């Protein structure tokens, strides 16, 4: 059996090795991330069937929790780790040719560290360890957003840093307060001591957690960094940030709310929060003329949708939310990757600059279209089953208020459809490109795009491949007692 610890150790050690590679080995540096992420993908996939039956608990240093740190490799963790390594793998292939500016070597190391952080967060069973990995994720994001040293990137990175660090500090305060209250850092142990969140002193850490993690997961009033950072980072980084990083924030939030606090009474509020995030995101994207900023705002909207689905709080709803997470990770990274080369060829991020790309870059354009369709939730793409599940789960609650919420959510989807179709029209049916500079993206960029397209269509047609892991993931989130039992066995 493969030990899940390798999922964290492999990219980490690769990141440590990269700076060692001197001038002679510099050329092969860029092949390390795909290799490592490919390895991670294989490991995650091979673990998945076992984990669905029984979660794997890994003791680090040989000490049982709550005394040592443990990894809790449940279905949820493996689902996230699969998606992380998948998207990481695909984006790193794309980066082979795409990343040419700046400190190339450092880019790859930072990239691997970002994914390490993400994987660490989803696998760990210790709240402070989660915080540490959370910081790895955040700091590497700051660095990656600004690493080109361009004006926009630096500005966004510094704003991101201030907000993100403030959020982290809030999380740390919450951890300190919880430690003061319970004297333990293990999530399962903590969960077993929290009977309910109705007491006032417990609610304050919860609020701190929501706010702190909300910054990274881009919940509405806390997401001001997102459009800046996503639009000014290189496209590969935008893809990773949008596809992975913010979802990890959601994961952390869900862990805290569902597993540690079991705070079911906050779920309706969470739903509202998701709804507002969705609407604000979609509205902001609606009249954007910068394509990457538009995609970034759309990410906000999608986060809103995921949070909304999580807030439904039923097994089906959470499955839907997780499905939507997968959808968004695949589709949004596809969108960012395709726009990456379009922008590169067009020399501008304006939507009007992409006009007529459908002819010059046919495959890329088709891929963009498919990504957009999928995000809107049109069949037969992956977005449809996820939307299907979310809608069903909301309606299954049989409540008038929920139907109103749902109507607003779907209104958001309509707005999303409107601006995506606008871009598709611009790409295909507007303007003629005379310049010969615009040509199809290189093979290294097309391969990941094609993989993503195949996945999007494949899962869209046959969503069953995901249902079992989604269902057990949702069960893991809902079944606090089971989690505690497994972790403290």
């Amino acid at each position: 059996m493969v030990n899940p610890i390798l999922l964290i150790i492999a990219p980490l050690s690769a990141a440590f090795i990269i700076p060692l590679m001197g001038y002679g080995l510099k050329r092969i540096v860029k092949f390390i991330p795909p290799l490592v992420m490919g390895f991670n993908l294989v490991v995650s996939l091979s673990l998945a069937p076992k984990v669905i039956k029984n979660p794997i608990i890994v003791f680090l240093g040989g000490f049982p929790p709550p005394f040592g740190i443990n990894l809790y490799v449940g279905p949820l963790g493996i689902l996230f780790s699969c998606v992380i390594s998948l998207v990481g793998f695909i984006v790193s292939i794309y980066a082979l040719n795409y990343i040419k500016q700046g400190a190339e070597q450092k880019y790859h190391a930072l990239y691997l560290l970002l994914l390490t952080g993400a994987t660490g967060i989803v696998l760990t069973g210790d709240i402070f360890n989660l915080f540490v990995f959370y910081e790895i994720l955040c700091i590497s994001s700051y660095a990656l957003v600004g690493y080109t040293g361009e004006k926009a990137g630096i500005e966004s990175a510094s704003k991101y840093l201030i907000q993100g660090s403030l959020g982290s500090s809030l999380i740390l305060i919450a951890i300190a307060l919880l430690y003061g209250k319970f004297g333990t850092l293990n999530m399962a142990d903590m969960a077993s001591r929290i009977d309910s969140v109705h007491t006032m002193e417990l609610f304050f850490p919860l609020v701190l957690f929501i706010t702190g993690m909300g910054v990274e997961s881009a919940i509405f009033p806390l997401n001001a960094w997102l459009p800046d950072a996503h639009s000014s980072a290189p496209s590969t980084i935008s893809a990773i940030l949008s596809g992975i990083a913010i979802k990890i924030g959601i994961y952390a939030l869900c862990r805290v709310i569902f597993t540690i606090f079991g705070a079911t009474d906050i779920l309706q509020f969470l739903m509202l929060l998701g709804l507002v995030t969705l609407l604000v995101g979609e509205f902001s994207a609606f009249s954007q003329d910068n394509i990457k900023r538009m995609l970034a705002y759309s990410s906000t909207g999608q986060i809103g949708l995921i949070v909304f689905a999580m807030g439904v709080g039923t097994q089906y709803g959470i499955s839907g939310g997780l499905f939507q997470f997968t959808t968004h990770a695949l589709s949004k990274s596809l969108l960012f990757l395709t726009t990456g080369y379009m922008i590169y060829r067009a020399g501008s991020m304006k939507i009007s600059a992409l006009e007529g790309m459908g002819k010059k870059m046919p495959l890329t354009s088709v891929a963009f279209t498919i990504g957009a369709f999928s995000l809107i939730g049109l069949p037969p793409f992956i977005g449809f089953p996820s939307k299907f599940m979310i809608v069903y789960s909301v309606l299954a609650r049989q409540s008038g208020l929920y139907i109103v919420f749902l109507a607003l959510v779907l209104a958001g989807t309509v707005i999303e459809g409107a601006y995506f179709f606008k871009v598709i029209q611009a790409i295909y049916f507007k303007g003629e490109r005379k310049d010969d500079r615009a040509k199809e993206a290189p093979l290294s960029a097309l391969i990941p795009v094609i993989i993503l397209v195949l996945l999007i269509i494949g899962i869209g047609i046959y969503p069953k491949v995901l249902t079992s892991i989604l269902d057990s993931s949702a069960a893991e989130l809902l079944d606090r007692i089971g989690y505690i039992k497994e972790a403290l066995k």
Partner: protein
Amino acid sequence: MDFLNNYIFYIGAFGLIFIGLYILLTRKNLIKLIIGLSIVDTGVNLLIICMGYLKNGTAPIFSRKGLNPETMVDPTPQALVLTSIVIGVAVLAMALSLAIRLYQHYGTLDMRKIKEQKW
């Protein structure tokens, strides 16, 4: 008085945090904001340490025989605070490097003037 006695450290810790937050909320110079962030960090570190405080406690080091384990303070927060400090240092370094580059680009660090990335 009793309250002060019992809570003086908390007050100190949260006092620092609030001072930091106040700086973050009202200042516009990036360097000052970073300082504010550091102050918040310091406050949090202090808070973590407070959590393990024991009256008349000793350091959790068995450097000589005869130390009473009962009077030792909780060692965990101290381990945590070590990590937390290092993280603070890392963030600070990143922030400063970004500030340097920002100044090179804009010639100012006034964050109310640096808003090219908006809407």
